[in-house]
Structures are given as structure tokens and as C-alpha cells.
């Protein structure tokens, strides 16, 4: 009797790329809904549009590169890239801005580098960086979250209703909204502007009850819910604990240090952790496996590096939020980090005799 041949191992687990990515999507949903709760339909429209563009461009790229479409489209990675990018965009941003961002994310950052698995830079962050440089105005028009409290009020108050939001995004609204009236700098932006102008930190926060409220409501809530999503991913072993912990801890440590040193000129750790895209970055963006460090120690260095860079760029840089640049800079360092942080292989040094590992000798 004849049999088929193959090579060991013949077993394989139920893991596949699709199920891994699916877990990420599931973890993103609650946080996204919370943001939408505060910012209205615009957020959901952003996500839908962005995901749609991402899938369309992914398909196009796969056709052009003559790759099988279904397995790659079915792996949800483009889906996630689109979604994450959308979460970093202000609501009611024009559709073509989204398109440009997604184009750079999917086509340039991902497929020009060889597609899934080969991109050294986080695609969503490349998209974001391009947008914040090219369209600084559009990218900072966050509508005031305190205008609204529930989806219900949204629907009744133009331009926050679904139809109005959609029209506004697509640029076919009858009257353009009065941006000045409804938009507002993000807390990070406001604090930065205030501090630059020499205002004491406590004044900035107290003078503007709105800022305090926004900080405590919108960003805090969404941050907490995204944290829950992140914990789910940890529980499901989709991500490792090192990057989120190191990122948040490093950010808390450096911001506390400066805040304690001079609490009127440096923002509080709470603001840093629960505003902007910090939490999203810690659990969803920096943990993107493809562009992150892969070794256990490397992940700690990588995460901590992002945390520190976020603080540095936010405090002394020119952009309101720093997540994208921090992630991209650390992406560049990944090959080096990985090389110097190889774990101790079984049978090398330490375990028996606590002598220094002999691995360095193998690595001239």
C-alpha cells in the first residue's frame, strides 16, 4: 500500500493569521463605540470609509502584484490598518483625506515593501504621519465633545446626525459647518499651546472647565475601554505584555519626573496616558507584530522607547500628538534592538552556574 509523504511536524494548531487578526478587531470594537458615543457618527463613518478604502486598495495591490487575493484579503490585516488609521482621525474629516492616508498606509508603507509581513513601518502610522504633515488643519479639527452627550442628541443637532455627518464628510453638505464654532483643540493641543504661552498648568486645566471635563470624560473613558480591549488581547495571547507595559510605564515615569520637578510647566502623567492615542498605541499600534521588536527584552526596549519619544515629542516637538512619530522612529531601531537582545538559548551560561552567558562570544 502506498501513502502520501510529507515532513514533520504533521500536526498544526488552530492558529491562523485570520483568527489572530480577528481577535484584534473584536478588541477594537468597544473602544471605537465609546469614542463614537462622544464624537458622534463621524467616527463610525471614518472607520467605515477607511476600512473600505483599505480593502479596495489592498485588492488592487494584490492584483497588481499578482498575488492570491482571497487568503490575503481574508487575513483582516488591511481591515485593521484601515480601522486603526480611522481612530486617529478627527470626525467629519473630508473623505479624500482619509483616502490619502489609507493610500500611503496600504500601498506605500505595506505593499511597496513587499506586503504582509515585510513592512518595516507600521502602515497606519505612516498614513497618519503623512496626513498630519500634509493636512495639519484638517487633522486638528476635533469637534467639541462636550457639545454632545449621547448619540440621541447627536442626531438632532446638526451637523452631528448621521446624514449630516455623512454629507459633511463627503463634502456635499448644503452648508459647511462653522468649524470655528464647533471644533476645539484636543486637550494635548490646548495644554501645549497654554504652556507655550506661559500659562501655569493648573490654570490651563481649571480655567477651562470644558477641558477638564473632556479629559475626564471622553479620553478617560475611551482610554479605559481600549485598555479592556488590550487586556483581552493579552488574555488571548495575541499580544505580549512587554510592549504595552513598557510603553505606559516609561511614559508615566518620565512625565511624573518632570511634573514633580515643575508641576506648572509640565503636564500631568494622567493627561499623558489618557489623552491622544496613548492607550490605543500601547495596546494596538505599537504591538503590531510586523513592525515591532520580536525578542522579549527587545519588546521592553521598543515599548519604553516609544513611551519616552511620545513624551519628548509632545513636550518639545511641534506636533500635537506624537504617537505616530514615536512608533515610526522605534520601527527603524527594531533590527538593531532584535540583534542585541537575543534571549539566552537553552544550554548557554547562567542556568547552572550563573556565569555570564557565552552567547556574546558567538556574536562578534
Amino acid at each position: 500500500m502506498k501513502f502520501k509523504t510529507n515532513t514533520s511536524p504533521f500536526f498544526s494548531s488552530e492558529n491562523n493569521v485570520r483568527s489572530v487578526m480577528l481577535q484584534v478587531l473584536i478588541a477594537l470594537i468597544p473602544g471605537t463605540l465609546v469614542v463614537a458615543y462622544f464624537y458622534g457618527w463621524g467616527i463610525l463613518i471614518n472607520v467605515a470609509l477607511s476600512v473600505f478604502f483599505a480593502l479596495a486598495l489592498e485588492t488592487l495591490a494584490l492584483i497588481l502584484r499578482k498575488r492570491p487575493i482571497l487568503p490575503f484579503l481574508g487575513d483582516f490585516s488591511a481591515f485593521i490598518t484601515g480601522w486603526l488609521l480611522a481612530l486617529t482621525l478627527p470626525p467629519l474629516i473630508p473623505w479624500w483625506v482619509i483616502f490619502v492616508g489609507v493610500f500611503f498606509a496600504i500601498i506605500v508603507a505595506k505593499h511597496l515593501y513587499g506586503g504582509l509581513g515585510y513592512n518595516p513601518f507600521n502602515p497606519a502610522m505612516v498614513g497618519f504621519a503623512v496626513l498630519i504633515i500634509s493636512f495639519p488643519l484638517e487633522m486638528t479639527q476635533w469637534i467639541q465633545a462636550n457639545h454632545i452627550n449621547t448619540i440621541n442628541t447627536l442626531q438632532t443637532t446638526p451637523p452631528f446626525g448621521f446624514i449630516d455627518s455623512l454629507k459633511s464628510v463627503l463634502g456635499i453638505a448644503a452648508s459647511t459647518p462653522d468649524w470655528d464654532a464647533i471644533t476645539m483643540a484636543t486637550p494635548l493641543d490646548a495644554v501645549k499651546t497654554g504652556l507655550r504661552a506661559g500659562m501655569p498648568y493648573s490654570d490651563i486645566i481649571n480655567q477651562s472647565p470644558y477641558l477638564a471635563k473632556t479629559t475626564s470624560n471622553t479620553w478617560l473613558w475611551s482610554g479605559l475601554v481600549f485598555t479592556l480591549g488590550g487586556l483581552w488581547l493579552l488574555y488571548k495571547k495575541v499580544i505580549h505584555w512587554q510592549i504595552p507595559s513598557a510603553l505606559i510605564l516609561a511614559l508615566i515615569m518620565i512625565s511624573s519626573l518632570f511634573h514633580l520637578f515643575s508641576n506648572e510647566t509640565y503636564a500631568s502623567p494622567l493627561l499623558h496616558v489618557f489623552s491622544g492615542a496613548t492607550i490605543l498605541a500601547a495596546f494596538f499600534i505599537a504591538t503590531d507584530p510586523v513592525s515591532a521588536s520580536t525578542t522579549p527584552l527587545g519588546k521592553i526596549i521598543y515599548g519604553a522607547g516609544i513611551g519616552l519619544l511620545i513624551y519628548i515629542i509632545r513636550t518639545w516637538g511641534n506636533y500635537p500628538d506624537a504617537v505616530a512619530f514615536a512608533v515610526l522612529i522605534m520601527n527603524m531601531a527594531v533590527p538593531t534592538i532584535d540583534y542585541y537582545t537575543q534571549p539566552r538559548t537553552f544550554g548557554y551560561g547562567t542556568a547552572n552556574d550563573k556565569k555570564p552567558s557565552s552567547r556574546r562570544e558567538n556574536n562578534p
Partner: protein
Amino acid sequence: MITVNSTNHSNEKVTPRKLGTFHGGVHPPFHKDDSNKPVINFAGIPKRLVLPLRQQLGSDAEPCVSVGDSVYKGQLIAHLNHHEGALSANIHAPTSGIIAAITKHALPHPSGLQAQCIIIEPDGKDESSSEHSFKPITDYATFSQNDLLERIQQAGIVGLGGAAFPTAVKLAGSKNAKIKTLIINGAECEPYITCDDRLMREKSAEIILGIKIVLRLINAEECLIGIEDNKPEAIEAMRLASANEFDIEVVSIPTIYPSGGEKQLIKILTRKEVPSGGLPSELGLLSQNVATAYSIYQAVMEGQPLISRIITVTGNGILHPQNFEVLIGTSFAHLAEQAGGTNKMADHLIMGGPMMGFALEDDNIPIIKATNCALFTSSTALRESNPAFSSQAIMPCIRCGKCMDVCPANLLPQQLYWHIRAKDLEKAKEHNLKDCIDCGCCNYVCPSHIPLVDYYRFAKVELREQKIAQEKADISRQRHEFLLYRKERDKRERDEKRAAHKAQLQAKKAAIAKKKADTGENADSDKSDISNSDTTKADAIKAAVARAKEKKIARETQADESLGKKSPRIKPTKNTGTNDEI
């Protein structure tokens, strides 16, 4: 860390041993229940037995029977090859019959290799003769270590855990290594395989006796038997059998693949790591498989050479999965038949387990000493846990690091993979590719279904070949350098010889001249004084001694040169110098 105190073992058994862990590992579906219920049956005498001359790494055994000979059960039919190192093992006739052929036959080998085999047609009588069998040694304690070792070698015993390394060689190597602890591997961590489980349940007393023989052989203080806790019956049986043995401890270890890997098991039981590239004996440890211990018992106390072993026949392609005692040389087809035959689903035949075994193309292939499992299964059953597998293509590595999380060698499988893919084998080497144990954990969890282990195997072969080529180049370079050196040396020696010769001549001349001068002096003194015969006599003696010395030196020089020594060249020159002074 708990160190076992050899005088106080009763306490030792009470306090649970503090176990070590290794990094990673996986929990695949183990499928042990498929085959671990029925008792071990004898698989019967097949129509034909095919016995490969080489069943392990190393060299062929040499046949000592010819075609047409009739042989008894247990008769030596091929003896281990003394010439090419002892890495071969005796082969005995598993039953009585006629030597039908000594010819090439397909082996159980991943690449369908063919090699010399002795083919026996059994006569069905299963006859043995006292002339051709070993005497049972009932009281092994009265036998010397060397006698026991010789019996193990004579009986053709090899490691039955998979590598089939000749046991006598391993034991002999450990005799001088001060082994403190004998590790007995009963982990059986590969999915599907239950032969050690059944053996431990049914032959625990015999295994313990085998262990005691080994303990005596290597003068070890204690023995730890590691058994995964998914085999409670085996643990119980072994504990019962060893209840009175104060130096044998049965340790229940957590079920995780690959706890049965030699280094992994040692880490679990002793919390020590065998150094990379090193041997357990460096830590005072020696490991043996339970089945090997059993066959040592059989060889010593029953006088039965290694002519059969226990094999699990299982998988969803087999009607009655179970364990058999199988004569070495029985075909997989015969085994399948004994287990009720195969069904339509059987499209894979795997020797060994699904993690580290290999697929065979044909079932008309003999089982060998290293065969522990015949897995007849459908491809879908192997991927059962992942129905999408067959349709899902291999995806690019998404660097998720799952492979790294499970690697028991604590390597970075993904980096190894990237480097090998980029043909950068040097980098792979730097990332300690050689410490990869091919366990397949990384492959098992990879969400992109990349055949990682194939890449590692390829790179290892490639690196080995590079190394061999490099060594060859080194050898020929060394040869060339030696040639140059020899030319140089010969020239130098010739020159020195010439110089020595010249010096001798000069010395002679000088001596003659001196003699002449002396005689002249004497003549003068003769004229002027009464001749001083004493002085003349003394001079003559002096000259004679000098001559003798010269001769001796010349002889020595010649001897040195003919021996081809290179250093003592200075001696003659120095001596000639002394001669000159005379």
C-alpha cells in the same frame, strides 16, 4: 535546589521534588486514549522478516550467515563492525527460519533509502538452541561490570527512544564519567504513542530490574524516572514496583510536549541545563529510555537479545489501535493487519509521532529497533484541529512571535527562518541554529503555517556540508603546508649533517695535528731531558678517548637523523665544538 542525599532517601520520597521547567512547549491533542487501553499483544511471526544491517547512525553490521543457512531464534546473524568504531550493533534472528536473501531493501527512512538487509523466511517453529543463545544471568550482582557491559553489547541493544545509539557504547562512555544520577525517560510526550505507557504498566518490575543493572554498571547513586502525569496508571505501577528501592524515584512531571526530549527532561527532573553541544555526563547524568531498560533486563536476566520491541499501532486509519510486541524486521503492512487492517482514511503512514516522526511512502518496509509507533492516519486528522489548513496557503511570517514563545530551546525561530530564507546561513548559525532540536513546536503554532522545521533541517544539512567542505579544504591546506615544511626540514637536516660532518673532519685534523705537535714536543724533550713516558702515555690515552667520543657522537648524530628528530641538531655541533678544543 534539592540535592538527593544518598543516605536519607526515605525522607526524600516524602518531600515532593522541586521540578524545573523549560521554556515554551505546546499541548497538542495527545490522542493517547486511542491506543492505551488494550494489553500488549504479540504481533505474531510474519512470513518474512527484513533486517537492515544498519539500524542507527554509524556503520553496517557484518553478516555472519549465508543465504540458505537455517538459523535459530536469537542466533547472531550479523555482528557489530569492529573496524569502523563500535557504532554498529549485533543483529540476531528474531525467530527460527532460513536466510532467504541478503540484499538491498527499502528502509524506514524519510527519503525512502535502500540498503543491505538480511531477509529471513521464518519456519514458524520459533526454535532456539542453547548453542546459539545467551545464558540468563539471574544474579547480576555477582557479575563484573565488564561482563554485564559485554552482555549488553552482545545482545545488540540500542537506545529504543528513537536515536538507536548503541547502549553499550553509551554506558561504557559513562563508566569513567562519575555518573551520579541515572535519568530514565518515561515521559513519552509525543502525541499518539503509548508503547512506553503500556510497557510501564505491564512490565514495571522488569524495568526496575533493568534499571538496577544499569545503576550497578555505572555506579550511579540514584535513579529518577520521569513520567508525564497523563499516564497515572504507569506512574502507579512504577511506584509500586520500586517501592522498596530506596535509590529509585518515580517523578510525575507535567504533560507538555517536548518534555521527553533528553535535555528537556533533565531540566525538569534536575533543574540543570545540559550545556549547548555538551553531554549529560558533564553534569553527572546519564539518560536511558524505559524500553531500553526493559531490553537490558531481557538481555541480562532472560538471555534474550534485542529481537523484538513494543510498538504502538494507531491512528484513525487503523481499525483497532493498540500496542504490539513486534519482531524486528516485521513489515508495517503486517502490523496494520494485526490491528484489524487499515480503512479508507489511511492516507499517511508515519513512523514515530506526528511532531517528529517521518512519513513512509510504502508499508512494505520493516520496522527497526528504533521504531516506536506506526501511525496510520488521514491527512485531515492530523490537521483536525484546523480544518482551514488544507485550503489555507502558507502565509508570510507576520512576526507574531508565537514560535518564539513555544521554542523549548529558547531560540528565535522567526529570525532563524528569515535568515535561512535570505540564504544567510551564517546569521542562522549566529542565532544558534545548531541548538534547535527539531521538535516542531514553532511549526505547530505558527499562524502562517510556515514549514519552519523544513527550513532548519535544510540549513543544518547545508551548514554541515559547508563544514565538511571547509574541513577538507583545511586538511589539504595543512597537507600542503606540511609538505613545504618537510622539504624545508629535509634541507635543513642535510645542511646540518654536512656541517656536522665537516666539524668532525676538522676535529680529526686538529687531533692529528695536536698529536703531531705532541710527538714533536716529546722528541724535543727526548733530546733535552729524560723522556717523560707518563706524559706521553696520558696524551695517548687522551687522544684515544677523544676518538672514541667522536665516534660516539657521529653515531648519535646518525641515529638522530635517521629518526628524523628535528630538535637535537644543536647537540652534535656543540660537541664538535668541544672536539675542536681537544
